Structure formats: structure tokens, C-alpha cells
């Protein structure tokens, strides 16, 4: 069965989510990931949106993390502070974040490209990203793999990954045992080395070579041992994704950003 890069990414990311856990998602791909997980191996995965929506039954993809879909037939519609406080006290397992830049320790930039005082591009800033990256147990990133994005040094550290390496989060005062967990791109699935806390490739997508990944990554990537191949989406996953999760192809139909 053929599939697109975005379909593979969504299926691979869904696999990383366990059942009976809580995930805070945004709109777009992460939302599709969580919906797919719910419809396959994780029926009791609870979805939250940072504007206050808890455990909605999503009738269609939200356009904004604050729109009315995000609490449609939910079990609670509350405040942003409440959602963040669920996270701050350790009740939320996963979150999905993005950014214009990511470094080897999973730190993210969504604030400026160029110098902060005279930016080349002013980006939105943290929004809730820095909060979620600080509080949730595991942070996932689903993004296109390119050299502008996977950089040696961020122009601005908006949201904390492992900061400067092992123990740095804890030294900074962030909750222990939290941090980056997976990066899923159009080329590979990456995790973080348990000791060095640097990004490492766990599996290459079918047909992707190590060199190709290394070529679009500015920093030195480590490799897990053994390095495996990402399992392709199953027919079931694809059917659910295409027919139930995103029948209008809002996400599946668009170019990779």
C-alpha cells in the first residue's frame, strides 16, 4: 500500500503514544496523531488543548487551539491556567511542539530568526510552548527535516529541551525526569541518548539512507544501536487516517511545512 511522507510521520508519531495517558496537542499534525492513536491502540488517550479544552470528541480538525471544536463534547471546558497547572503538577504525559529551529538537545526556537534586537524574522514567540516543554513528561516534535531547522546553535532558545546536556534541566530548576522524547521527520524517527541527552536516530524511514539524514542536519547526529527501519503504516492505520481522522485531507493533502 502506498503512503505519503506525512502519513508515515503521523503513524510513526502515533506509535509513540501509550494508552491511558494524557497529551496536550495543538492543531494540525499533532491533533491527527492523537486522533489516530485513539482510534487504534490508545482508545483511552486523553487529549487536551491549552486554551482549556479537555477530552473532546473531535467532530473535525480544530483550526485554532482555542476554537469550539477543542472542547466539543469534552469532559471539561476550563481555563488556560488550569491546563498548564495539570501539566505543572505532573499529570500530563506528552506534548507536541514545533519550531523554526531545533538543536541537538531538543531545544526549540519559535521567537526570532537573526539577532533578537534586530530580528530578520519576528516569529510568534513561546505561546504555550515553553510552558509545555517545561512541565510535560515527554515532548515530541513532528517536523520536516531540513538543514535550516536542525541547527547547531539556535538564534533564540524559546522552549527548553535538555538545554546544555545531562542534568542541565534539573540544575535550571525544571521538574526532574522531563524533557524531549521523540522527533519524527519525513526521514527518520529520533530519540535522545540516555546519557548524553543528544539527539540520536532510532529508525530510518523505508528507503532513507543515513547520509541523507546527516546531510540535512547541521549538528552531529548520533545513531541508536541497533539502528532500525521505521515500520511502514499498516493498511488499518492508513484507512482510519484517511477515512476517519482527516477525510477532508486538511492535513494529508498539504505540502510538508
Amino acid at each position: 500500500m502506498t503512503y505519503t511522507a506525512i502519513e508515515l510521520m503521523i503513524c510513526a508519531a502515533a506509535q509513540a503514544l501509550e494508552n491511558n495517558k494524557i497529551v496536550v496537542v495543538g492543531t494540525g499534525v499533532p491533533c491527527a496523531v492523537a486522533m489516530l492513536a485513539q482510534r487504534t491502540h490508545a482508545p483511552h488517550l486523553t487529549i487536551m488543548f491549552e486554551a482549556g479544552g479537555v477530552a473532546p470528541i473531535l467532530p473535525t480538525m480544530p483550526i485554532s487551539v482555542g476554537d469550539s471544536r477543542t472542547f466539543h463534547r469534552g469532559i471539561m471546558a476550563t481555563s488556560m491556567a488550569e491546563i498548564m497547572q495539570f501539566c505543572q503538577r505532573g499529570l500530563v504525559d506528552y506534548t507536541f511542539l514545533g519550531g523554526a529551529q531545533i538543536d541537538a538537545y531538543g531545544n526549540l526556537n519559535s521567537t526570532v530568526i537573526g539577532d533578537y534586537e534586530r530580528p530578520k524574522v519576528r516569529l510568534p514567540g513561546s505561546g504555550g510552548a515553553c510552558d509545555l516543554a517545561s512541565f510535560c513528561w515527554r515532548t515530541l516534535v513532528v517536523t520536516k527535516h531540513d538543514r535550516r531547522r536542525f541547527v547547531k546553535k539556535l538564534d533564540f532558545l524559546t522552549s527548553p529541551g535538555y538545554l546544555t546536556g545531562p542534568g542541565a534541566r534539573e540544575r535550571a530548576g525544571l521538574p526532574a525526569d522531563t524533557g524531549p522524547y521523540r522527533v519524527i521527520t519525513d526521514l527518520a524517527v529520533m530519540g535522545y541518548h540516555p546519557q548524553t541527552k543528544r539527539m540520536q536516530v532510532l529508525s530510518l524511514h523505508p528507503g532513507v539512507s543515513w547520509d541523507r539524514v546527516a546531510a540535512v542536519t547541521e549538528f552531529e547526529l548520533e545513531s541508536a544501536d541497533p539502528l532500525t527501519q521505521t515500520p511502514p503504516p499498516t493498511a488499518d492505520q492508513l484507512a482510519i487516517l484517511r477515512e476517519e481522522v482527516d477525510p477532508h485531507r486538511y492535513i494529508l493533502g498539504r505540502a510538508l511545512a
Partner: protein
Amino acid sequence: MELATGRGKLFANPSTRLSRDTFSAKSRCLTPKVTTVAQAVRELVRDGDYLAIGGFGTNRIPTAVVHEILRQGKQNLSFAGHTATHDFQILAAGNLTGRGRTLARVDSAYIVGLEARGLSPHARRVMESGEVAVTEWTNYALAVRLQAAAMGLPFLPSKTMLGTDTFERSAARVIECPFTGEKLVALPALSPDVAAIHVHEADVYGNCRIRGTTVADGELARASKRVIITCERLIPHDEIRRDPHLTAIPFFCVDAVCEVPFGSYPGNMPGEYFSDERHLKQWLEAERTLEDYRSFLEHFIFRSADFWEYLDKCGGAGRLQELRQQELFFQRPSEGTSQQAETRR
């Protein structure tokens, strides 16, 4: 060990002495406060004020008030940019368009973007011009800063921003917990001079109900020195008293009440109407060149007498009914870029 301090500027004084004196002087009279948006903005929004807008960027926003602030040419405002998307986009139209400088200082958590719809070209121009001072925060940090003011405290602690450049460019400070020694980020109270909040229902005194998520509006209404409410519908005072546990904002926090049906347009209003993605896309496109944008603004904002005229220009009652049906029957949003990038704020 020296504890870190952000080097951003603080745009509002967190002292409780000041805010207590203000709240002490605020009217607690159960008196009707219904007025027009124009009158409310004229009386309650002042040049140089610290302004905050309720809702969540394109959801439950007091659009009419933001338009009116532009129309009345208010200058030199400080602004709380917590998931400020379309509201920020409108305010940014008061800079670099030959009408002075509406925005002077921004506490930024999320600005210039419209979530998945992309970045606002004009908001970028404004923020990259250097004419607006910025201090960085996060969505939660701004919610907590409002909460501190709502509680009558000069600061609240949190565990966000530790170890980041966001902290470095904030005006927060690292402190240690006096009990456990844990490092925490102290967030200074934020008591805006004036806030505008759109709600589902209010009575003439300003008792308000909100359906669905409240975002940070409970805190905002309580933290702010002056509060303008716009509502989809006025409801009888008796209806408020029938179910007092449904009241989200009590009358003594509120200074003006304006009935503005479809008041969150082109944003979404839960249970009422969906966002107008077509108009939001048109707006983003109009921003590409300054010239186009000025004509766009002339047409939609400056040459509209009020919000009704704006709604008419956007398609009037027919379009509004379409958005109502989209909201209630979950039809596919008509046209619009809607969902372009998964990057989350």
C-alpha cells in the same frame, strides 16, 4: 549563588499598594452600565494605557472594541500579547500606516502569528521595525501574572521559562522556595489599565456568563483596573440570579457593557458562529503591501461608522448565518487556508 534576573523591561508596576488604592476607588454600585462601544472606548481607553484583550486570538474576541481603538486613534499603548492573533493584527494596523503609533510596548507570549493560518506580514513589519519595545513571556506566564494581580499579590511563582532565552528576555526573576530550596520563576503581577472581553451573556450591570473555555478571562477581568464587556446578548438580571454558579465575571469588576451580537467576528464564538476563514485570509493577503493594506483598512475600519457597517461589508446577515450553521452543524469551513502548518504556539 546569584539568582538569575531577566533583562526585559517591566511595563506595569506590580505593587499591591497601587492596585489596592485603585480597586478601593472602583465603584461597587449595582448600576446599569450599558453603553456604545464608541462611548466605552472614548471614556475608558486612554493614550498610554496598558491594554489587554480577552479570548484567544480568533476565539471569543471583542473585535468591535479593537476596531474602535484604531478608529479613535488611541496612541502609545502597552499590550498584553497572550495568544494575541487577530486582535494583535488589528492593533498593529495602528503602527506604520500614517496614524501615529498605537502600540508602543508589548509583553509578548504569542504575537504576529495567526496559528496555522501563518504570520501577519504587517505585524511582522511593526515588530521588526524597532518602534515597539518587547519583553518576552509565555502564555502561562501572562496568565499567572494576571492571576497574581487578581489575587492582590505582587508576584506568583511558577516553573516555566527556567533555563531559556525567553526567561533572559523577560522581566521575571529566579527565586528559591523557602521550604524546599527548589528554583522557581517569580512572575510580577500584571494589572492592565483597561481590558476588553467578549462574553456570551451579560446583564446590564455587567454580570457575565461564558460558555466553553474561559482562557485567561476570569483572571483578566479581576486583574484589570477598568473592564469593557461586549456580549452576544444582554440577558435579564433575574436570569443571572437564577443560577449564580454560572456567573464568570461579577458586576463590580465591570465598567461598561456593550451588546454586540456577532461581536467576535471574524473570530469563532463557541456555540454561536464559526470563524470566517475567508475574511481572515483576505486580511492576511491585504497586508502584503502597505499600500493595499491602507486601502483595506480604510474600507473595512476607518470608513465604517461602527461594527454593524463592518459586518455588512463582510457579507452581512447572509454570511453570518453561514458561519452560524458551520458552528452548529460542523460543516467544513468554506474556503480559507485554514490549516497550513502544524507548528504550534
